[in-house]
């Protein structure tokens, strides 16, 4: 069971959380203006990296807030967790 540090509550066991898929994919401002390719890109295409992955988690059985995390998909180790809306941390030497 992962140990996840909610940026609002601190470290908590995984069973308090739900996973929310890849982070930093903002819903477009004006979907109606988008062509099919761009919309498809937004809707379906995900990075699925081997290594550092920015992903969303929700501390469902805690503060219930969404937040973002950088997790290494090869080791499951979290490198950082940070509040929704904040940019992906620029970690020198940590993955891509």
């Amino acid at each position: 069971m992962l140990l996840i540090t909610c940026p609002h509550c601190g470290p908590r066991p995984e069973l308090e959380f739900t996973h929310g898929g890849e982070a930093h994919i903002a819903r477009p401002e004006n979907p109606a203006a988008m062509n099919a390719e761009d919309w498809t890109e937004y809707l379906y295409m995900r990075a699925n990296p081997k290594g550092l992955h920015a992903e969303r988690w929700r501390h469902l059985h805690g503060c219930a807030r969404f937040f973002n995390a950088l997790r290494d998909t090869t080791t499951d180790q979290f490198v950082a967790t940070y509040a929704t809306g904040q940019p992906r941390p620029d970690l020198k030497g940590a993955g891509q």
Partner: protein
Amino acid sequence: MSKTLRTPAGGSVNRVKTIKFSFDGKTYQGLEGDTLASALLANGIRVMGRSFKYHRARGVLGAGSEEPNALVAVRRDKARIAPNLRATQVELYDGLVAESQNRWPSLNFDVGAVLSLLSPFIPAGFYYKTFMWPKSAWDKLYEPNIRAAAGLGHAPTEADPDSYLNRFAHCEVLIIGAGPAGLAAALAASEGGERVILVDEQCELGGSLLSATDAVIDGQSGRAWRDAVVAKLAANPKVTLMTRANAFGYFAHNMIGVAERLSEHQASPAKGAPRERLWQIRAREVVLATGAIERPLVFPDNDRPGIILADSARTYLNRYGVLPGKRVVVATGHDEAYRAALDLHKAGVTIAAIADARPNPKGPLVEAARAAGLPIKTGYAITGTKGTLGVAEARLSPILGAGRVGPPEIVACDSVLMSGGFTPSVHLFSQSRGKVVWDETLETYLPGASAEAERSAGACRGQFGLAKALADGFAAGSDAARLTVKRDFVVQATEGDPKGVVGALPHDRGNGAKAFIDWQNDVTTKDLKLAVREGFQSIEHIKRYTTTGMATDQGKTSNLNALGVISDALDRPIPQIGLTTFRMPYTPVTFGVLAGMARGDLFDPVRTTPIHDWAVEQGAVFEDVSLWKRARFFPQGREDMEAAVRRECLAVRSHCGIFDASTLGKIEVVGPDAAEFMNRFYINAWTKLGVGKCRYGIVCREDGFVTDDGVVGRMSQDRFHVTTTTGGAPRVLAMMEDYLQTEWPDLDVWLTSTTEQFAVIALQGPKARDILSGLVEGIDLSPEALAHMSLVEGKICGVPTRLFRVSFTGELGFEINVPSQHGRKVWEAIWAAGQPHGLVPYGTETMHVLRAEKGFIIVGQETDGTATPDDVGLTWAVGKAKPDYVGKRSLARPAMAAPDRKQLVGLLTKDPHIVLEEGAQVVLTPGQKAPMALVGHVTSSYHSAVLGRSIALAMVSGGRARIGETVYIPMPGSDIAVDVTSPVFYDPEGVRVNG
């Protein structure tokens, strides 16, 4: 051999406390402190099991959790039978009843052993090759028979009456393994005052110190040192010591699963005493001090009972006071076997020969054996054994090189000890995703780079010998506790060369000889070589093809030798063959300890409504809807479901029905931007919905497909009472929160689940208004004041209510929301008021029929995650003027408007008595052969009492354009002709909602 092999003195067994036990129906005596294996050995019992594939007689090989052969069932009563226990780990208690496994009719005469004679015909992959055809015979014929003939033990047939506990624990330093390295690590780690947990699988802490005789640490005997250290640790309140604790799994982020045996070893556990406890320990740092496991030698006939690992023999002698035999041959490729030979020699056992495969062994242990006059043959391989159900002689051959041996000498003996060296136990390290690395010097895999906050110490990382283990353990404990404590242990112990032999010994016994690699799965060198000859090259494939290392012991004693043999066969170094990943559990754990308290009523939470008990009292039949118990129908007398539903349906249509809708999901959407939020989230338009009005809302996912629906009422300008489907409530709330928190943080809106806060009573039928009128206060129920799809707040039976005038039946209807604690009171008041009006309770089955008669969809029944609002006839609900909402862009994709999309239609069978099967397929022409051209499927199908015939809803390709056509439902033997119709079967004008 029936004479006793118990020494007159020595060991840590209690000589004055004899214990009676039975094995395969015969009674024996052991001593307190014995394991089942040591007690059986002491009684001269050699054969303890039959092997898995060939049913060969097998004796005990080891003395601990690595034991592959001596698997037994321990039985207390019919419900308490624990199969597949290693006799080496079963602590003896008075009255213990143990049975051997995998034999019929008896251990010493097993009919299945004829399989051994057939073994030339059962090569690797035999089952794959032989039982391939015909395919259909696999399920019915081959598999059941193979399983009956094989099988490892039998599960009890009755439910487990025992209880199991579950605990979480946290500590700064967790140490796994309490041998010298683990004890030293605990000594160091505990000096910092932080929480330390030390776990060990045995009943006593100490590991190899428990059977040490010659070691002296800091001036004390190994055993005395161990006692002092354990006493010191036990006195430290920050240190937790756990015995009988199997650290079976290393999970992410230093979560270790430990199965602790609590009462298994007791003769008569207290009534209700828990049997085992699951620990989930989260540690900041982990020290793995898991030691090493002795490797067997691979030579012909190496599985004969009486052939045991040398160090295990030492354990039996020094810890349990049991001799492996009276005249022993020692076959080795490692120094430690000399220590065993010396100890046995001192105990009066004749060492008939020491056959060392190494040409020139030296070092203090070898010299000590020479000095003791033991007959050592260097450069000798053991090339065979003989004996019936035991060893009578060993065949020793000089090694000539290049895989050849010279003429053998036959040495009479009653036991053979063997040692190929020690394989570090990297199981937990590997489970932690650490990468093992090949060590050329030791010829073994050792822990490499860590993936978790852990470090290995002692023999499990190749630091062999007592002095090294203590120093390494202490350093690891200090490091894990982030201390810089130092301590030098003064150790007097004779240490040998840590290097041993890997793979098979040479022999001249020809192709028929069986040299076992994996005792538990009966894999021989021949099987591995055959796999290589047939083209397998990767250990991952060879393992699956031959099943080597795949038994319940996961190849604890066999993996490295298998790699050695494959390496020879492929002529490729071991590191290039790869290593399989170790999986949990380290040693098998019971289902009971994993299930813990999650059994029976506690298996899954059960949600019940405030009206639940009333329905129970009325004899309702319930169904599970997500976690809810919902009343499905209310049978009267001897009614079956069909009769009850027919009666309930007619009663609603003619008089009135009362229905518990409390399970509907409810979400309160509140805030200045509530309407804007609803506009963005739902496909419907909400701005113009007046206060006191309701609307049927539909939620799509961003991909445009319907995911939930429900009536939404506007309580005030800034407050919506949202309902969802019963199963969809958490999902819809989570989706709402997602958009609100992450996409639209600009909106000032609060979302609150109110599902549990309201009891919801649906009153449906022409008499509904008459029944309610006497119960409400301050509420005008007249059609003018409370039109269909509107709501009002007021009081009913003296308690506050949100009263919706809505209908999921097509009849005049109300849904009365009251605070949950008043639910039953209000329900009973309505029930009483309804008696003169012919009110009946109805369940979910009737609810389904009534809504289907009206063509109302159930999300998840008509829809399957690929239906758009238009597919299910809900285009009218879309707020077309809205610039955006969740799903809008996706719905604009051309494919979403394709004319051949599956659309909701009604189906009426030509024969009104036929009720279609839900899930049945729809085709356009009869008499098709598979594969047919399928154009749709039946989603809902019922007998409609009010219509006096069957009805069905279906999703049919281009369905709306097919209304009026005849299509077919192919069923075994016939095609059922049906007319495609509108999905609204009853009251298409919709006048009945007006009462």
